[in-house]
């Protein structure tokens, strides 16, 4: 009897370790696909409001998770608006007022351009593995593709979402769906990722649909028109002087 219990405990122990390793491995592969030394993205953001939809185009330059610079190209009202992120700080330049405004505190949780994304969402490019501890909680099929279902819980303090549920494509190791939760367990945001393409040797979703569950409207589509990894980005782009140029 004692022998049987020992075997059962050993099986449970090694199974748990096995799942933890698998979850870490999965996150490693996800981070390898989704994170890069640097990248340049040209994108369209379609915001579906209660009354109408708007499309904005922009070009973003980013280096690691510390520096990024975005310039809005259209529509005319937004054209020339620029955002600069350095570490944990964010500045916005408005050409109409010729002002550079620093966004901080609770304003970082506000929506960007009326979209379902907050400034914090845009700023947080950290690798999932650095921020969350993960466990595999199952496997599901989404649109005919097999996925690993991971539950992520924050292991650091300064995170926007305490936990996440992630559906990762079992072949491409790219998230297909994500649910973001508050500490209370309330679902705050939902993201679906699709149009997965192989770009420069990595799989990358080129369409994301974000839905802020606490907001009216039908969500925000983020479509990547062009993405380049590991480019040479001039250092001056990540300075406040570049905002006014």
């Amino acid at each position: 009897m004692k022998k049987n219990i020992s075997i059962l405990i050993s099986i449970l122990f090694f199974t748990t370790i096995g799942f933890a390793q698998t979850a870490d491995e999965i996150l490693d592969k996800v981070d390898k696909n989704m994170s890069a030394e640097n990248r340049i993205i040209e994108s369209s953001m379609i915001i579906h409001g209660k009354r109408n939809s708007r499309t904005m185009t922009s070009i973003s330059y980013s280096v690691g998770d510390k520096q990024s610079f975005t310039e809005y190209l259209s529509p005319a009202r937004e054209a020339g608006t620029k955002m600069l992120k350095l570490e944990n700080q964010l500045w916005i330049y408005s050409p109409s007022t010729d002002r550079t405004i620093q966004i901080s505190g609770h304003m970082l949780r506000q929506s960007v351009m009326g979209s379902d994304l907050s400034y914090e969402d845009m700023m947080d490019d950290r690798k999932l593995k650095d921020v969350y501890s993960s466990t595999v909680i199952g496997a599901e099929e989404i649109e005919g593709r097999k996925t690993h279902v991971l539950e992520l819980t924050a292991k650091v303090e300064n995170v926007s979402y305490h936990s996440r549920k992630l559906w990762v494509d079992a072949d491409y190791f790219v998230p297909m769906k994500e649910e973001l939760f508050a500490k209370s367990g309330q679902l705050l945001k939902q993201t679906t990722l699709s149009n997965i393409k192989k770009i420069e040797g990595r799989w990358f979703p080129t369409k994301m649909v974000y839905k802020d569950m606490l907001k009216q409207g039908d969500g925000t589509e983020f479509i990547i028109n062009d993405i380049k990894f590991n480019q040479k980005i001039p250092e001056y782009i990540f300075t406040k002087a570049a905002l006014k140029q």
Partner: protein
Amino acid sequence: MIKFLFKGILRDRSRSLLPVIIVSIGVLLTVFLSGYFTGVFGDIIDINAKFTSGHVKIMTRVYAENKDQVPNDLALMEVGELKTKLNLEYSEMEWVSRTHFGGLIDVPDENGETRAQGPAAGRAVDLFSPESQEIERMNIGNSVVKGVIPTKSGEAIISDDFAERFSVNIGDEVTLFGSTMNGSMMFHNFIVSGTIRFGPAMLDRGAIIIDITDAQMILDMEDAASEVLGYFKDGLYDTEKAGLISASFNEKYSNVNDEFSPQMFKLEEDAGLDEYLMLADSMSGVMITFFIIAMSIVLWNTGLLGGLRRYSEYGIRLALGEEKKHIFKTIIYEAILIGLLGSVIGTILGISLSYYVQETGIDFSNIMENTTMMFPQVFRTLVKPAHFFIGFIPGLFAVVLGNALAGFAIYKRKTAQLFKELEV
């Protein structure tokens, strides 16, 4: 008999002084507190009507559901046409558009970069039209601390607390940063024409007031507004009339299946003041009941003491053949006279005190500094015609009830024992 009893009351002060004092005090308190509650509740309703709710308010159905978030993407559209219809169909009211907006007020340094910033709680009202009553209605003129009310496009008046905290001076430029009705980023520079302090913290925190035409331009809200407010032209709120107007409007223009259709709310529905209004209505009744009960107990006791003191008098009167019923009747008549006398004195004192507090007010601004509710800073009474007779109800009723209870003792007296008692 009345004249005889009245002379008795005046000449025998020990019979009347204490009851008259008690009735006077009770009536004084009833009249004053009734005026006080009428005044305070009236001011709460008035301040809410002027600043937030109007006498009636129109919003889109979906905006009304989310109004705490100030969702201008759900605001009313084609407001010009709506107001034309309102002016034609409900001409007893004045119709005004207002827009609320949030965001940041950013103060630049000499390089145009952020020196200081704070959250903005913006209001756009009609400041420039010559026929607009908004400046008087919201008491903007009297609330200006420094500078002047904006007189041209591109000017704003901001919270005096904000200006003090961030050393913003009259003529300085500040940037308002927020979202337009369509969700685009909104940046606009305003010249600070003045600073303002209304009193209640919830009105002053991050306050920035601009003209409605400026708001329409910067928030992409041409011919749109967060809400349209209606005010009775005589300035007095009439809940029944407001109810009829809102029911008629909603029947014509509001559609349950169209979340962007307009919906009208009367003051108490919008501001959550239903309970306040009910309380205000019932407060006089509650107080009268309270004083009738309290004073009746006191006067019953006084009557009992008087009955004991006049034990011999009643005994002699009974011995002389006066009927118990007649003695009881004279006690009640005496009580009515005492009640009338006390009520007149109490009403005169109560009205005088109420008038004094109505004119001078009691300043609670220090206590209310951080309150987030729409309360007036100075509490005032309000003397209404009803206060001239309201005190007579408890004044008369309590003293009659008290004496009647005490007077029942007469019926317990036994004629056969009277002479024995009188010997004692």
